[in-house]
C-alpha cells in the first residue's frame, strides 16, 4: 500500500493501491469527537463502511477513475456550498454529507433517477439544517480576527511564487488585475478577445492561477515558519 497523490486525490481521506492492475481505494474513518460525529452518531463496522464506499463509487460512475474524479468534485462543491452558507466547518459537513449518502447508497442506487449530485445536494440541505440547530444550542463564538503578523513573509513568498509562474500566466495575472473600474472591465474584455476566450473562461483561468498562487504562498510561508521554529529550537 502506498499513499498516492493521484488523479483520484484520495490522499486526504483515503488510500489507493497503485500496485494492482485495478487500483482500489479505501476511506479513512472520520475523526471522532467533532461536531459531525455528534450529528451523525454513526459508528459502523469498518468492512461494511468500505463495502458501501465501493458501492458509492460504482453509483457515481462504472469507471473507477471517473468515479474518483466525480467524488472529489462533489466533495469540493459541497465544501464550497457550506462555505457559502456561512458554515465555519464546511469540510466536516461535506464529509458528513458524503457519509450519509454512502450509508444510503445501497437503498437508492437501484431506484434513484437523476444526477447523483442533486441527491448529495438534498442531503447537504438536511445536514446544514441539523448543523444550524446544533449551532444555535452551542452558541459558538465568532472566529478570531486574522493575525497579520506574517504579512511581510507572505508578501515575500507571493513575489517568489509570481516569479515562478510561467511567463504567459504571469503576464496574464498582472494584466488582468492591473486596471480599475471601467478600464478594468474593458481591459479584461479585450484580453478575452485577444485570447479568443469568453469572459467566463478567462475568469476561470485567472481564478485557478490565483488559487495556485495562494497555495504556493501558503506552502512557502509554512516552510519558512517551520525553518524559523527549527532555528529557535536549536538556539534554545
Amino acid at each position, binding site marked *: 500500500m502506498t499513499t498516492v497523490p493521484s488523479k483520484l486525490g484520495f490522499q486526504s481521506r483515503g488510500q489507493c493501491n497503485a500496485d494492482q492492475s485495478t487500483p482500489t481505494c479505501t476511506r479513512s474513518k472520520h475523526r471522532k469527537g467533532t461536531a459531525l460525529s455528534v450529528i451523525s452518531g454513526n459508528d459502523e463496522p469498518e468492512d461494511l463502511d468500505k463495502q458501501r464506499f465501493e458501492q458509492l463509487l460504482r453509483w457515481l460512475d462504472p469507471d473507477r477513475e471517473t468515479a474518483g474524479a466525480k467524488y472529489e468534485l462533489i466533495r469540493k*462543491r459541497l465544501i464550497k*456550498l457550506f462555505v457559502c452558507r456561512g458554515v465555519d466547518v464546511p469540510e466536516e459537513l461535506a464529509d458528513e454529507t458524503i457519509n450519509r449518502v454512502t450509508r444510503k447508497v445501497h437503498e437508492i442506487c437501484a431506484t434513484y433517477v437523476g444526477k447523483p449530485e442533486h441527491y448529495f445536494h438534498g442531503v447537504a440541505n438536511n445536514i446544514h439544517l441539523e448543523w444550524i440547530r446544533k449551532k444555535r444550542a452551542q452558541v459558538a463564538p465568532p*472566529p478570531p480576527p*486574522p493575525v497579520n503578523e506574517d504579512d511581510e513573509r507572505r508578501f515575500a513568498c507571493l*513575489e517568489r511564487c509570481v516569479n515562478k509562474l510561467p511567463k504567459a500566466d504571469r503576464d496574464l495575472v498582472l494584466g488582468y488585475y*492591473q486596471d480599475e473600474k471601467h478600464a478594468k472591465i474593458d481591459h479584461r474584455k479585450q484580453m478575452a*478577445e485577444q485570447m479568443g476566450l469568453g469572459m467566463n473562461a478567462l475568469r476561470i483561468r485567472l481564478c485557478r492561477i490565483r488559487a495556485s498562487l495562494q497555495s504556493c504562498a501558503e506552502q512557502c510561508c509554512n516552510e519558512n515558519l517551520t525553518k524559523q521554529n527549527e532555528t529557535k529550537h536549536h538556539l534554545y
Partner: protein
Amino acid sequence: MQAETIDERTLRKYLLGDLSPQECEKIEGWLMSDDEAYDLLVAAEDDLIDDSLRSKLNRVERHQFKARFLVAPERLEKLDFGRSFKRYIDGLRPGPAKKQSYFWGTLTGYFNRTPALGYAFYTLLTLMTVGGTWSTFKLVDLQRELRFTNAQIANLSTQRAADLQEQSAQFVDLSKERDVYRFQLNDSRSSSKKLEAQIRTLERTISSLKTSSEPVSIPVDLTRSIPPPESPTQMLATYNLFPGISRSAGTVAMARTSSSIPTIGIFANSRLVQFFLRLFIDAYDTYRAALVGSAGDEVWSSGRLVTTMVESNKVLVVLVPAKAFSSGNYSFRLTGSSSSQPLENITSYYFRVVSQ
C-alpha cells in the same frame, strides 16, 4: 450541465447572503451540477475580496461581507492572500506602451472574430509593405541616376571649360606664332636690304669691270639678241628680263615673235646666272619664280622672293645655277602671294639660252 448561467451580480449577492432561499437553492443546484460553476463562484469570491480591499463595498455590503462572507476560515485566508496580492499588484506601474498594445489587442480580437477580414487586412498590409519596399528601392535607384546625370553634366561643363581654355591657349599660341612670323618677315626684309646693298656693290663691281676690257655680263635688251659674255672665266652672268606675255581675249599669247625673244649666252665655266625680273606693279608680299623649259616642264624654282629697287625700278633678283640651262627656249613663270592667300599667276619672262 445546466443551460442557464448565473451572472456576476447574482453570484455576488449570493456570496453576501442577499438572496431569497429559492434563489439560493437555484444557485446551489447550478453549483452542484455545472462544470464551470465552482470556478466562477471562486472567481466571484476573489472579486468580492478585491473590492473589499479597495473599499468598493457600500455600508450594507461591508456588513454582510464581515458577518457572513468571512465566517469561513478559508475565506479569511483568501482575504490575507488578497491583501498581499493587492500590495503586489499596486507596486507595479503600468508601462506607457499599454495603450498601443490595447489598440493592437482590440484589432487582433476583432480579426479573430472575423477571420476573412483579418486575412484581407494582413494581405493588404503585406502588399503595402512590399510596395513600400519596392518604391523605396525605385526611389533610391532614381536618385542614383539623377546623381549620375548631374555628374555627367558637371563633367561636360568642366570639359567645355577646358576646351575653351585650350582654344584660348591656342589662340595665344597663334598670336605668338604670328609675332614670330612678323619678326621673321622683318628679319627677311633686313636681309633683303643687305642683299640689295650687296647687289649695289656687285653693280658697282660690274660697272668697274665694264670700264675694264672684259665685261662679265651683258644687259638684256628687249629688241635684239644679247651677245654672250666673251670671257671664259666669267663666274656670274647677269641679265635683265621684262615681262614677255600679254593677255588677250582670255588667252595667253606670246607678246613677241620668236625673233624678238632675248637670247642670253652662258659660258661653260659659268656657275650662276643672275636675272633681274622687272616688275611694273608690286602687288604681292612674296613671289615665286619657276624656270620652265621648252617642253613646259619646270626645271628649277625659287620661292619667297621679295622685290628690290634697282635704279628706281622694282625687280626680283633670281640666281639660277648655270648648269640648269642648256641651249633652248626658257621662261620664268612668276607667281605671287599675299598673307596666307594661295599663289596667283602674274606673268612670264621668255628668253633663249645659247650655251657657249
